[in-house]
């Protein structure tokens, strides 16, 4: 029954790990060939893999875990998906209904534990409800603001048979989020665009979640109006990095020009982003002179932290379509003269070249490694996942994304250990594609057991580890904020990554000389199979630019030589 419902929902892949309470479902999976099951090595990885699958395809990802520890291990992944609005369905086994509440073996109150970390969850106590709940779950996961859902299925409910409810043609139930925006506010926004002197688009993961059409519409709108665009970490790829209006990522480690433009704009058009604290910095000094429009499918995102002048509740794709229509119908007007002046200002900011770093001939700088990775993979349809930390920010700064769904990273929750299993999920969804996990050695170790999965299913995922033998971001904060007392922020007793790869039956590459880097990267790219690339980089590199805690966008710390002063305490370079 479960497998039938999954098939009807168009599921082709399930990531999971068996256990006593899900054996009946595993038995069903064994007896069919339509759905492939990918055996991960840890339930957290199953959920992250489902996230990678979902984020790279736009479909709903599915994970299957057993009761008790299986479900509790899934909690991190569920929370991660909730924070980043990733549509996934997690099926968990449960002890039989008559044993619930008796502290049975591998029993946990799964719906209780996962209630705050799912968009919705269900405990199915009657087989007659099972198939309709599964259909409803896919609807809830994918519609409105997407998110994770969980279905807890007791073992006796899995065994019992009942009449199958087919997938409804139209979504049933009362959960029907609003997708069309209010036309009056959309018109008001278009009017504001027509007269704005310093407008900016600030886009987020909502554009990606809305689907490829939304990215297409966004590109059309940006090109036609000539308005500069920046994006959050989650929204990279919605507008191409090579596009002429692209300012780069904004936020704590965003680009100088993007943050200064946000600070100085007079019209901010937030499309599918949520004014996260990594974006806004200090709230009372956040873009003080701008009128703010906010397009979001989730009404609770609007006015949550930043007061919005033009709130539009709706799906980004639908609202952008209406915006374009109205703007065209009103004569495609923008304030050309002011806009040209605005661009001159932005170009001045660009001259600061905030990503400049001091390269070295003897040590690989992490930025250099990513620049080379970018150069050597340019033009290939490439999927990037990341772990969390400095390498993640450098990847966002130095890699360019031309299309949506090519960038999988843990934004809201900041889950170390996300990248590797996520890359597994992406590779399963795109077997022929180049999938690279840009990692730090510490994050990567958190889910390194997935080497087993990669090797078993011959998934040629490239693990590009920027190894600084430090918890780089923690170390950076300790240096800047805690008097250089490096409490527990170095990675001691690291494994030999080449031997580790070989132990799993994969290929390992180590590189420490900048002169060898290109050849080593090419060797990684040309190898048909999983690779661990141990890239030994500068140990004390800091990630700049950076908006320090409690500061507004126009008080950024810049990197390179200027950073040395900051570190030495001879006066930070506050711009």
């Amino acid at each position, binding site marked *: 029954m479960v497998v039938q419902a999954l098939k009807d929902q168009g599921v082709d892949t399930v990531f999971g790990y068996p256990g006593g309470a899900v054996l009946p479902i595993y038995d069903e999976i064994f007896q069919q060939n339509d759905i492939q099951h990918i055996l991960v090595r840890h339930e957290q990885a199953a959920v992250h893999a489902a996230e990678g699958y979902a984020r790279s395809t736009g479909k709903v990802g599915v994970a299957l875990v057993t009761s008790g520890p299986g479900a509790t291990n899934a909690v991190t992944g569920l929370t991660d998906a909730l924070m980043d609005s990733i549509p996934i369905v997690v099926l968990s086994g449960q002890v039989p209904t008559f044993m619930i509440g008796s502290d049975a073996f591998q029993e946990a109150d799964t*719906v*209780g534990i996962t*209630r*705050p970390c799912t*968009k*919705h969850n269900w*405990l199915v106590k009657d087989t007659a409800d099972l198939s309709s709940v599964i259909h409803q779950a896919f609807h*809830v996961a994918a519609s409105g*603001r997407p998110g994770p859902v969980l279905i807890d299925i007791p073992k006796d409910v899995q065994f019992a048979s009942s009449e199958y409810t087919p997938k409804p043609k139209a979504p049933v139930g*009362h*959960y029907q989020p609003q997708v069309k925006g209010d036309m009056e506010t959309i018109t008001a926004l278009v009017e504001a665009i027509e007269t704005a002197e310093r407008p900016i688009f600030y886009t987020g993961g909502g554009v990606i979640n809305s689907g490829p059409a939304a990215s297409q519409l966004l590109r059309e709108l940006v090109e036609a109006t000539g308005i500069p665009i920046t994006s959050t970490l989650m929204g990279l790829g919605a507008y191409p990095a090579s596009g002429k209006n692209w300012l780069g990522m904004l936020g*704590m480690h965003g680009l100088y020009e993007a943050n200064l433009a946000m600070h100085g704009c007079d019209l901010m058009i937030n499309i599918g982003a949520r004014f996260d*604290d*990594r974006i806004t*910095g*200090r*709230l*009372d000094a*956040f873009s003080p002179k701008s009128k703010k429009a906010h397009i979001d499918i*989730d*009404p*609770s995102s*609007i*006015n*949550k*932290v*930043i*007061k919005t002048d033009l709130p539009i509740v709706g799906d980004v794709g639908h609202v952008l379509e209406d915006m374009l229509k109205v703007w065209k119908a009103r004569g495609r007007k923008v304030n050309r003269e002011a806009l040209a002046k605005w661009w001159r200002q932005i170009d001045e900011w660009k001259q600061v070249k905030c990503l400049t770093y001091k390269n070295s001939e003897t040590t690989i700088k992490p930025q250099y490694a990513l620049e080379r990775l970018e150069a050597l993979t340019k033009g290939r349809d490439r999927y990037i996942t990341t772990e969390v930390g400095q390498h993640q920010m450098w990847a966002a700064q130095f890699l360019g994304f031309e299309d949506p769904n090519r960038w999988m990273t843990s934004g809201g929750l900041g889950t170390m250990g996300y990248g590797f299993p996520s890359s597994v999920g992406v590779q399963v969804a795109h077997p022929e594609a180049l999938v690279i996990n840009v990692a730090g050695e510490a994050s990567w170790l958190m889910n390194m057991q997935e080497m087993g999965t990669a090797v078993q299913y011959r998934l040629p995922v490239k693990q590009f580890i920027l190894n600084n033998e430090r918890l780089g971001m923690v170390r950076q904060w300790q240096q*800047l*904020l*805690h*008097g*250089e007392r490096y409490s527990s922020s170095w990675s001691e007793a690291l494994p030999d990554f080449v031997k580790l790869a070989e132990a799993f039956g994969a290929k390992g590459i180590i590189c420490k000389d900048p002169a060898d880097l290109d050849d080593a990267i090419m060797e990684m790219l040309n190898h048909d199979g999983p690779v661990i690339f141990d890239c030994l980089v500068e140990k004390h590199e800091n990630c700049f630019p950076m908006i*320090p*805690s*409690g*500061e507004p966008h126009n008080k950024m*710390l810049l990197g390179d030589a200027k950073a040395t*002063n*900051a*570190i*030495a*305490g001879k*006066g*930070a370079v*506050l711009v």
Partner: protein
Amino acid sequence: MSALQIKKGSSKHSAYNLRPTFSDVQEAHTITVLVENEPGVLARVIGLFSGRGYNIDSLTVAEVDHEGHLSRITIVTTGTPQVIEQIKAQLGRIVSVRDVHDLTAEGSSVERELALMKVNGSGDKRVEALRLADIFRAQVVDSTLESFIFQLTGAPDKIDAFADLMRPLGLVQVARTGVAALSRGTS
């Protein structure tokens, strides 16, 4: 030693700086939530309040439509106008929630609560308690020679007032149902 010139009042050790940019006036609002009557729905609502740090001053819940499987939860909460808006928006996100109404913001409403109060005493105090109960239209639902239990319905402030009067007269226990509320008129 810190190279960062961080202003007074901002947090030094965290990236969070959530100094409110909104009004900080606290308001009490009565919010009524129509929910699908399914296991765990109350936990979802309460979990939202505790998880996001909102206040619950009072909460009542009961099934109101058996065939439609609907329950009504009435919550009295306190917060700044922005927090109240967030509470409503967050409640609206819960999949099992059908409808959210802010009775305080949406015109006049009727709010009622039932209270039981045990008052121990003898002599003049006992007589006075009974007299006041009469003024408040409270009923005596249990009586011994040295105690009464009064039953009182009314708006929360009426019950507060009655409790204040009973306190010097030997009030020993109070049980209150919390507020049930509906908007006035046809809507």
